[in-house]
């Protein structure tokens, strides 16, 4: 009779319906290939919908009888994760519960103080840190000594120093090519680089990564080929913050995707810097099989643009939308309600601008003041009040009170619904 692994690890993702957590895929792929864990740690991934009742999440976790439970946390699933952790703690008192992700990483100590069921937070890039944490637990050493970990030591919350970023992203085995993530029918995510060239005040896309690091072209090409031949996967999307990062890169990606596009594979909602798109770039996107792109402007109010460190050039933006529309690509224009600096009239003007632009799709959202972002750090200075509990929705700004923000949200939703009601 074979014995199981010494350390059973359950990785739990509470995702948007139909999606699987790529973050957990990376973490698992890296740990599975870590020599220190080989033959000792066994991994199971539970990808569940974020709407699943936390009691059933705990039920599924308990059924795996893990020694370590890891959750990936975003502002959208944080409440559900915390609820599930509390129940798992009662069911599996000896399990070591670890969380990581953009929601908890910048506020790790606060999370451990407010969530007694959680044992440790993995800060920053999780792959190396989580693997080392598992190795440390296997050896029965102190988790709070692991770089990038915040953990408990004799009832106190202690943070080890930050871990440097992984210099060579190819050191992380591909979650797809290693089988750590099985593409499911529907859609899948692909990442070609980490970091963001922009520094928008409300966004955590750069996750504090100071520079852009890329996966090798060979790696990206291999992943794309693998996903493109997956049965039932008619589309996938790139989660890169800017798909058209550089002209050379766009040309290369277009060439990579073109053969699959000609077989009907489509890319949906890739994020683009629309002000750098002309007919030639639109043609490259079209050849890549891009069916829809997502872009700003988020706001067109001068003061908010300044506070949020964004730029907006009306004519270039309009030209970009026109170029994409001419190439048959649907554009989703995003606006954020509640940015500091915007007055009600600015928000309404933004709605008018995107509605009259008629890009194909409108997306209105309310500002979420995310941990680790510039606005989170400067909230008081710029007059932002927000809910400290996730998803950290804005309560009021220096320019718009609570009631008018709610009105603008409702107006924005009505605009979205009316906009979509068309032939």
């Amino acid at each position: 009779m074979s014995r199981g692994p010494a350390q059973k690890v359950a990785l739990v993702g509470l995702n948007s319906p139909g999606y699987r957590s790529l973050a957990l895929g990376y973490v698992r792929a890296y740990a599975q290939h870590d020599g220190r864990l080989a033959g000792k740690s066994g991994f199971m991934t539970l990808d569940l919908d974020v709407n699943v009742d936390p009691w059933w999440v705990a039920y599924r976790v308990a059924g795996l009888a893990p020694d370590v439970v890891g959750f990936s946390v975003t502002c959208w699933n944080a409440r559900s994760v915390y609820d599930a952790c509390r129940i798992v703690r009662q069911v599996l008192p000896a399990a070591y519960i670890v969380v990581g992700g953009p929601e908890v990483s910048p506020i790790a100590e606060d999370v451990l103080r407010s969530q007694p069921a959680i044992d440790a937070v993995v800060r920053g890039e999780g792959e190396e840190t989580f693997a080392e944490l598992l190795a440390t637990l296997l050896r029965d050493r102190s988790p709070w000594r692991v770089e990038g970990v915040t953990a408990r030591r004799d009832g106190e919350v202690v943070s080890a120093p930050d871990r440097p970023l992984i210099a060579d992203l190819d050191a992380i085995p591909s979650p797809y090519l290693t089988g750590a993530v099985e593409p499911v029918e529907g859609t899948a995510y692909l990442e070609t680089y980490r970091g963001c060239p922009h520094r928008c005040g409300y966004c955590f896309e750069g996750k504090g990564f100071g520079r852009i690091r890329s996966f090798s072209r060979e790696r990206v090409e291999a992943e794309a080929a693998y996903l493109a031949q997956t049965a039932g996967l008619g589309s996938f999307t790139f989660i890169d913050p800017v798909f058209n990062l550089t002209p050379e890169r766009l040309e290369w990606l277009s060439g990579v995707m073109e053969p699959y596009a000609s077989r009907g594979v489509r890319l949906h909602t890739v994020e683009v810097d629309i002000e750098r798109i002309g007919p030639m770039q639109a043609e490259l996107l079209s050849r890549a099989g891009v069916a829809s792109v997502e872009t700003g402007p988020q706001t067109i109010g001068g003061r908010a643009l300044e506070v949020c460190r964004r730029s907006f050039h009306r004519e270039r933006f309009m030209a970009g939308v026109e170029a994409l529309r001419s190439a048959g690509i649907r554009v989703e224009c995003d606006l954020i309600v509640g940015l500091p600096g915007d007055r009600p009239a600015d928000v309404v003007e933004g709605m008018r601008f995107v509605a009259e632009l008629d890009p194909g799709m409108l997306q209105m959202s309310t500002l979420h003041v995310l941990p680790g972002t510039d606005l989170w750090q400067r909230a008081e200075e710029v007059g932002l009040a927000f809910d400290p509990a996730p998803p950290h929705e804005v309560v009021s700004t220096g320019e718009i009170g609570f009631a008018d923000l709610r009105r603008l949200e409702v107006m924005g939703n009505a605009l979205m619904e009316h906009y979509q009601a068309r032939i």
Partner: protein
Amino acid sequence: MLRFHEVRLGAGEEAACRRCASASEIEPVEPAAGSSAVLDIELTAANSAGALLTGTGSLDPGSLVEYAARLAALGVGRIGVRISGGNSTDSTPMRLLLESGVRVIEVVFLGSGPELHDALVGTPGGFDRAVGAIHACSEAAGELGVKVAVRGRIRLCAHNLHDAPAAVMRLAEMGVTSIVLECDPRLDVRRSAEWVAAACDTGTVNRVWVAVTGMPDGALGDKALHALDVISLTEGVA
């Protein structure tokens, strides 16, 4: 924001308060010039953005579907129809309307329930027919897999002012996308402001946008945003 050109296919709307209006004002009138040639002129003015067919009271159902289909064929992407629970066109099967290209259904109400609505309109069963149209629209949209916006238009006058918040609530429960509170300009602003404000708040709390027309500038006070509508109507008569 979303520009719609109002294409009046006939003069007169049946769902108006009979206690306010004189008989001549509410008498349905035959389409003055509902010919396709005139409609084309309207389309030019509409610039192919959106069109809301109103004054449909005396049209036969087949004509309404025909007009909508014609607009769709000419490239108008957003086509709406205003119905009021008392029109002959209300019996047009909703599925046919949606199939012809209609994507906005605007339903006129004068009250939150049949007692008030029917009494003011003077048409027994009008309220139930208006509600039935909304339900039929949702059902047909689901069957056809198309996105449809349902708008409520509440006509407010001295006889139903007090009912405005309840009417908004009722429409919100029915799942409408937005509501227009069309205030009779003859309303006493001092008397109506409070009711209108309560109706706006009822909409906000229930996450339905309420736009107010017919109130003088400044009358909405701290609810000034409600003077804005997501649909901007430009008028025209076919």
